[in-house]
């Protein structure tokens, strides 16, 4: 059996590490570390994009990688760190489900997404198609993290991690989306973060805390 070419091996390693990072984010309770993990995830995504760009020679992927680097590795983590310092949120509260339970659900999610990706990957013509399952898993794990977290900041980190997963998925299935769309998505993410920054200060001003417990008074029926 011939081993894969080196760049694909590296890409697979990247994908596996992304998956591992998703699990670490699921388990991590220090918000500062969570942001660092997010930055690391962004860096891996950037590296993977460069690998694919080198392989396929598509210029827009370099741009996409640069965008990822600027936004997700440097920009947003810095912004989030600053917010954390200014708002003084360092720890997340106990998660809604206990960690082992979360991990177990996480494993089931991985199995599910790998199953989901199988028929899709069979249709794809890209050399990177085998990592599609990991991309879906990253998306769904981020989703799980959003559900189980209580602090607004952790939810936001999970949300961004979901965005990372989406980008990785786009890359494994189709070598990325058209440039217009990627730029638009990046712009939206940036604006979302700015809106959030404003929002956090409003929440903090009102409640003196970023715990989402305070945001549970509106009920479906009164």
């Amino acid at each position, binding site marked *: 059996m011939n081993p894969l070419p080196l760049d694909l091996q590296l890409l697979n390693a990247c994908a596996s590490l992304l998956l591992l990072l998703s699990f670490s984010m699921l388990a991590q309770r220090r918000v500062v570390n969570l942001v660092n993990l997010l930055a690391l995830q962004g860096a891996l995504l950037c590296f993977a994009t460069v690998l694919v760009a080198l392989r396929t020679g598509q210029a827009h992927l370099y741009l996409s990688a640069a965008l990822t680097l600027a936004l997700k590795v440097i920009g947003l983590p810095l912004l989030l760190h600053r917010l954390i310092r200014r708002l003084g949120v360092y720890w997340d509260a106990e998660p809604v489900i206990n960690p082992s339970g979360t991990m177990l659900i996480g494993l089931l999610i991985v199995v599910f997404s790998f199953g989901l990706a199988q028929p*899709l990957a069979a249709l794809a013509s890209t050399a990177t198609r085998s990592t599609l399952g990991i991309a879906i898993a990253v*998306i769904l794990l981020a989703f799980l993290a959003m559900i189980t977290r209580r602090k607004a900041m952790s939810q936001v980190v999970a949300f961004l991690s979901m965005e990372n997963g*989406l980008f990785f998925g786009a890359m494994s299935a*189709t070598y990325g989306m058209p440039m217009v769309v990627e730029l638009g*998505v990046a712009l939206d993410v940036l604006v979302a973060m700015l809106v959030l920054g404003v929002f956090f200060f409003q929440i903090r001003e009102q409640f003196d805390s970023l715990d989402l417990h305070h945001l549970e008074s*509106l009920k479906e*029926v009164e």
Partner: protein
Amino acid sequence: MELLLLLGTPVLGALVLWAFGAHRRAAELNVLFSATTFAAACALTVQVIARGPVLVLHEQFLIDAFNVFLVTLTAFVGLTTALFSRPYMRIEAEHGRVGAPRLRLYHSMYQLFTATMLVALTTNNLGLLWVAMEAATLSTVLLVTLYRTPASLEAGWKYFILCGVGIAQALFGTMLIYFAAERVLGAAGVTALLWTHLNAVKGQLEPAVLSLAFVFLLVGYGTKVGLAPLHNWLPDAHAEGPTPISAVLSGLLLNVAIYAVVRCKILVEGSLRSALPSQMMMGFGLVSVVLASLFLWRQRDIKRLFAYSSIEHMGIITFAFGMGGPVANFAALLHMTVHSLTKSAIFFAVGHAAQKAGTQLIDNIRGLLTLSPTVGWGLMLGSLAILGLPPFGVFASEFLILTTAMKQQPWATPVLLLALAIAFAAIFGKVQPMVFGDTEARRLPHPPALLPVFAHLAIVLLLGLYVPPYLAGWYRDAARLIGGP
């Protein structure tokens, strides 16, 4: 040209109002920009009627029979809401609920929101559609939290997170469509997300991928439509934001989200040649109708009450589009129009009523008729219209939908009828004492300006009695475009 004017005006408006939003005349400027947008929309409509579908700017923008009337509707309701918000926000400012910086934010974001909705409606690029939908959420989040009360912050947070998650699902769905299209349209990547190109080759797209894509798209955009069980954000956002925003959220944003779903449905149905998208839409629609009508009973806040009514009507529209076919599509399009007009009219009236009473609680608002006959009648007539009483337009569209359902999906008819009856009893029972009840409060010296309310209701009444032939032709073209099983 008209398109540039249409999209450029609100963007320019957002910039100008960001600079001068706190100015004394900012509200008038807001109206002016909205009026220009409406004029551009009318010009565009005339052009489309005269020359058929327009495809401009490297095929990135498409105006056809389906979206042109939505563009006009959006611009129109945008204009009337701007008219309504001028006195409304002034009174809010007098009451000290919003300061100058927040008014600036409000006006600027109002224009930006209009712009994002118009982009979402006119774009031919599914990716751009997504971007615009997300931008529409973002521009309204800070509007929902305008009052900075704990409840409004909670509503804003829910809105942001739920719609953010939903819209991420939609992005994945869009990605899957691109993935399927790339295999057919080639790896050039430029055309593979353009709706017109996709529509041309929809028969060749991989059905397995598209059905998965549709699940994600329906869940994603469905969250924005407010389909149950993804509707949690909707009542909160409507109840806690300023009333003009509730009006545009209910009247316009939900329409745009449905538009996105239907555009995707056309593609998926063409590829699948199966009833899966129809069934999913009918299922989500029915669940929304039933759940919303049940929740209507338990509401104590007048704006939440009508927010749930919006969920109910979105359910009806989704169900109708799900059934498909020329008649059901026609009825759904008509229903989109009349619901949008009626619901924004109701929110205008409710806004005034709540402002006068100083509360949004139904129990504390009584005797509107004595307090101010125009508000009272506006609310009463609006409620009767939205409940589907003849001769209003909502009756016509609901009647059409029900008769079609009886023919095509007989099992669903009793469910729909029952839900409508429950909703009728709930809303009527709550609105009636508000309007006719006794009150000790004195009659207000000045009747509020309710021109937009009665203008909207007049149009709805007109549509109930007589649909002008060119409008009917329009709907018919759009209905044919949407197709169905």
